[in-house]
């Protein structure tokens, strides 16, 4: 019998103890791994969501609110951007694309984003394929045609060719507006459905911004909106050279040279800062996970040490049969390694399963998509726990090493 077979048999012989130890190690690993996976997944989701947008220009106010509204399609929009700024940017030779965004309406809680066809040509890098790709149909070509994000289409049960009527959902966008009749009179027709981007953009409904301008024309005039009838909530721009034109435009806007009523933000930076804020909570959770791992190590130690005390005579018999002290030491260490290894394996599966469940629950409840991958920390974490298990086995192994065979072989 090999040493591994003997170690395995010893674990099977005290199956309940072994299973409990594997369970405790597994739960500790799962806890730590879930935190790592979710934290990494949120970062992945943020990276993915911010991917196509280099610079967002919006009204004055909270920069994070602008990004959360524009990129994550959550919360309320800020004040509109002056139309003259949009027109100025269109003239800027350092920009390859200037795309207006209009918010304010929704259909069954899915934001309707008014934009223009070049929006669908945004991509992370010039060499990348477009971020938005059609799964069915085509891009809108005229007002009151709509392209649905993949998840919006799925949740709303809408297909190409079907129609829906928008609801006015964001009172802040155009306060005091009474235009229900306009919404009723102008239903949208679905002309295309996008492929999944694994980002909150999948929840959006994209329409020609001209539809917005047409519906809200009367209301905007009534409330005296300074931007006039052609309201623009935010502007996406694509710089010709990166980062020179990006920073130039950002500086020109934020210094007030181009407009006093607008701000330009790099969405990735704002989302990164937002995640850092949430990261403090993750640090506390990580601390709890480290404690759990330490306790798992203590469980391995107690379980093995107790087993060694019970099995002194068995170890003495192995010694009498010719097993050297080093071999007995290795046997016990192998047992702790097996328990820790099984715990790590169980914990890895449990951790991934838990993270997957949580990410799906969050996905259903929020816009943020948690993209679960295999983070670099995972193998390090799993190896570290394995090491903790082995270290926990050193003292019991030493006790086994020191067993004097002649002392325990005599009848008691």
């Amino acid at each position, binding site marked *: *019998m*090999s*040493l591994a077979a*003997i170690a395995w*048999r*010893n674990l*099977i*012989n005290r199956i309940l103890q072994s299973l409990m130890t594997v369970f405790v190690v597994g739960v500790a690993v799962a806890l730590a791994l879930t935190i790592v996976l979710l934290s990494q997944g949120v970062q992945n989701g943020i990276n993915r969501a911010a991917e196509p947008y280099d610079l967002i220009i919006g009204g004055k106010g909270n920069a994070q609110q602008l990004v959360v509204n524009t990129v994550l399609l959550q919360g309320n929009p800020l004040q509109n951007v002056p139309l003259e700024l949009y027109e100025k940017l269109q003239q800027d030779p350092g920009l390859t694309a200037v795309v207006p965004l209009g918010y304010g309406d929704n259909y069954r809680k899915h934001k309707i984003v008014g934009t223009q066809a070049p929006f669908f040509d945004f991509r992370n890098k010039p060499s990348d394929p477009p971020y938005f790709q059609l799964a069915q149909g085509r891009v809108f070509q005229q007002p009151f045609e709509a392209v649905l994000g993949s998840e919006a289409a799925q949740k709303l049960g809408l297909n190409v060719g079907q129609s829906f009527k928008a609801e006015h959902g964001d009172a802040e966008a155009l306060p005091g507006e009474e235009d229900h009749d306009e919404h009723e009179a102008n239903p949208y027709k679905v002309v295309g459905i996008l492929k999944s981007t694994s980002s909150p953009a999948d929840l959006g409904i994209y329409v020609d911004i001209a539809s917005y301008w047409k519906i809200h024309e009367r209301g905007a005039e009534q409330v005296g909106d300074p931007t006039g009838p052609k309201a623009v909530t935010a502007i996406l721009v694509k710089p010709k050279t990166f980062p020179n034109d990006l920073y130039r435009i950002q500086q020109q806007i934020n210094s007030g040279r181009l407009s006093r009523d607008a701000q330009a933000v790099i969405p990735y930076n704002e989302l990164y800062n937002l995640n850092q804020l949430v990261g403090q909570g993750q640090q506390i959770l990580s601390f709890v996970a480290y404690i759990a791992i330490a306790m798992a190590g203590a469980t391995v130690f107690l379980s093995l040490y107790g087993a060694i005390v019970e099995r002194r*005579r*068995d170890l*003495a*018999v*192995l*010694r*009498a*049969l*010719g*097993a*050297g*002290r*080093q*071999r007995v030491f290795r046997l016990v260490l192998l047992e702790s390694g097996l328990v820790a290894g099984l715990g790590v394996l169980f914990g890895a599966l449990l951790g991934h399963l838990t993270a997957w469940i949580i990410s799906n629950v969050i996905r259903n409840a929020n816009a943020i998509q948690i993209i679960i991958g295999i983070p670099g920390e995972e193998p390090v974490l799993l190896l570290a726990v394995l090491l903790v298990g082995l270290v926990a086995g050193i003292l019991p192994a030493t006790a086994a090493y020191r067993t004097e*065979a*002649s002392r325990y*072989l*005599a*009848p008691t």
Partner: protein
Amino acid sequence: MIKLVEVEKVYPSPAGGALKVLHLERLEIADREHVAIAGPSGSGKTTLLNIIAGLTAATSGEIWIYNQAVHTMSERERDDYRARNIGLLFQTFNLLSGFSALENVLLAMSFSNKIPAGQRQGRAKALLGQLGLGDRLHHRPGQLSTGQQQRVALARALANKPNLLIADEPTASVDYEAATTVIDLLESSCRENEATLLVASHDPLVLNRFERVIRLNHQGQIERKAEALER
């Protein structure tokens, strides 16, 4: 040949000082000889067997077994030497309760590497079969009778084809009939394997079966007169 010269074993006394438990001026046992070691409790019988088996190091003296100087060996070397050359049979059998009869025998072969790995299963099954346990291979010790457990222990002791079989009080846990069977088995097994047999016992039934009985006194010394009488 087994030869012990001026062998002493001294333990530190709990009350302080030293406690000499064994003092042999000279002891020689010929190859394939069957010898009993007798003596009252505390006379050092088990200590003597442990020293010969290499389980315990003597405090001083020379231990020669088949021309190997056991007294110069490191503990690791003694472990290897024991695994390859010595079969041990204990009073309470000392079978591993979580392992089957077959596995208990296989375990003994795992540490010696004397029997090639491919032959171990076959040899273990054959040994158990010869001892009437062919249908009990996968039973655990707790599922076997006392006599069956003892035969598993004997099969384990014989697993590595030892030159020397050492049995410490092998009949203490069994009744008269079983004791006779055990001694018969030990003697016949050693004859078949051309092994030397060394049995420590205080059981007159056992001692009467041996031509040579070495008697130890309370000081852990051989009673020369008694040995001469036994001869």
